[in-house]
């Protein structure tokens, strides 16, 4: 484990130049946002998937949403990134001074969803949107690829990468625009156990370094406890439990303090049966 930490420890010089670079292109869009949900209802035909959700997420928090399949977590996630609109209720993003802002929200999906016909670096550049000129996009994409340790794969086709590498490219694509809110939709579900741990530590590291607000949707309680400051359990479209995880980052697997939180969450999820 210690070998791992040193390998992924923040390296001076990898993050800072990118921060400086982006200020020259589009200053001021990287600030973490806070989220305020009020009485959110989402109804699909006869199904009321979300029932009056009230939730405040402070800027820079790492929130995990757990729950069984069909508890409404994916629906909530789609609202947060603006893929859907709620049937009723209000959704507001604010910067640290409390002013309402557009959330520069990005999402990392369960599947990497890379364009198979674009090279790795071009896939990452997609994350910058359409307003950035090609050269700047290329340079920024290379820098973020360096952050996720994939600089040497920049000119590869996605088909040539492993599952874990593809998911890291997807993470780089989400990070390249320095989002204020980053949402993870079970991003590690398709990876094997060891790759999961590596990815979890990468996610944790970039979150600590870049300070965006993070929301992780998962059904893996251990993963939620490992990464998040706070875990909420969704059940039947309502918040069934809201738990702060008071433990220092970076966290380690097998920590007995975390196991206590894990048990409480599992009881809440399974007890709700």
């Amino acid at each position, binding site marked *: 484990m210690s070998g791992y930490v040193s390998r992924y420890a923040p390296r001076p010089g990898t993050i800072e130049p990118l921060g400086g670079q982006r200020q020259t292109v589009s200053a001021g869009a990287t600030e973490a946002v806070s989220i305020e949900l009020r009485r959110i209802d989402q109804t699909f035909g006869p199904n009321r998937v979300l029932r009056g959700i009230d939730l405040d997420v402070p800027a820079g928090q790492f929130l995990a949403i757990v729950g069984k399949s069909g508890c409404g977590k994916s629906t909530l996630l789609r609202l947060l990134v603006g*893929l859907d609109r709620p049937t009723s209720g209000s959704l507001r993003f604010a910067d640290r001074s409390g002013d309402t802002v557009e959330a520069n929200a990005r999402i990392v999906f369960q599947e990497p969803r890379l*364009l*198979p*016909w*674009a*090279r790795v670096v071009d896939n990452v550049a*997609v994350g910058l949107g*359409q307003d950035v000129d090609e050269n700047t996009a290329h340079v920024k994409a290379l820098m973020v690829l360096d952050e996720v340790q994939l600089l040497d794969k920049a000119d590869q*086709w996605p*088909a040539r990468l492993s599952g874990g590498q593809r998911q890291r490219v997807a993470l780089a694509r989400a990070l390249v625009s320095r989002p204020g809110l980053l949402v993870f939709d079970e991003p590690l579900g398709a990876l094997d156990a060891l790759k999961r741990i590596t990815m979890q530590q990468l996610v944790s590291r970039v979150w600590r370094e870049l300070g965006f607000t993070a929301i992780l949707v998962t059904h893996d309680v251990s993963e939620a406890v490992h990464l998040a400051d706070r875990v909420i359990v969704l059940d039947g479209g309502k918040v069934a439990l809201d738990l702060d995880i008071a433990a220092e980052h970076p966290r380690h697997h097998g920590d007995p303090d975390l196991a206590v939180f894990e048990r409480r969450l599992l009881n809440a999820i399974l007890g709700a049966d």
Partner: protein
Amino acid sequence: MTAYDVASDRSPQRRSWVLPAPSARRILLKEFLPYAVPILVVLIWQILSSAGWISTRVMPAPTDVAGAFVDQLLSGALVHNVAVSGARALAGLIVGGTIGLALGIANGISKLSEQLTDTSLQMLRTIPHLAMIPLVILWFGIGEESKLFLTSLGVLFPIYLNTFHGVRNVDRELIEMGRIYGMNGWTLFRKVILPGALPSIFVGLRYALGIMWLTLIVSESIAASSGIGHMANQAREFMMTDVVVLSLLIYAALGKLADVIAKTMERHALSWNPVYQR
């Protein structure tokens, strides 16, 4: 432990013993083998013709065909006719291909466009386009318009169907991803939809090339005053079987050439696809 045993079993020396490096003889065999049967057939054909077992009125000897090739080449007729036929094929492909591509894309993207035109296109598609030759001659005579019309019509449908299918089957998740990252309209089309549909469009193109030559051969034989089909038809009137067979061979060569060009384009355009990576 077993894992290590397996690994040591696959040492480079061992592998090179199992699969020896391709020798010059092997490469020659691999390149030559596909042509062995045609060469054998031509040899037997030549022997039978030389022995007088096949009448030249039925089938000319390969040497006669070669002679006809030289004659036609020297007179300039061959180059002229190949150029005329090639230009017709290309014009038909461009006109029909463009219409098919445009309709396929429009109907793949827009539900309204699909509802408006797809049924009509499917109805037209069921008419064998060569059955329209009498009508086409009445409309256009035997000028260039008739050949252009028929080849375009023949090429249109395979390109339309495959483009439509390709656009419709672009991964929805990739399109959703593109939208989240701010792509819309032309950008989404250029970066996601078109590349996603391209493999299918190429299938349509290669299928269309076959139909293109078929249509051209038939329409040149019936209604033309130049081109390879016309050359063959004229030779028939003078019982010049060698020129007839030469025309067939030229069609075969042109067809093969078109397919090779399409294949090369396909390999180049789809190099991202593991299927085309060598």
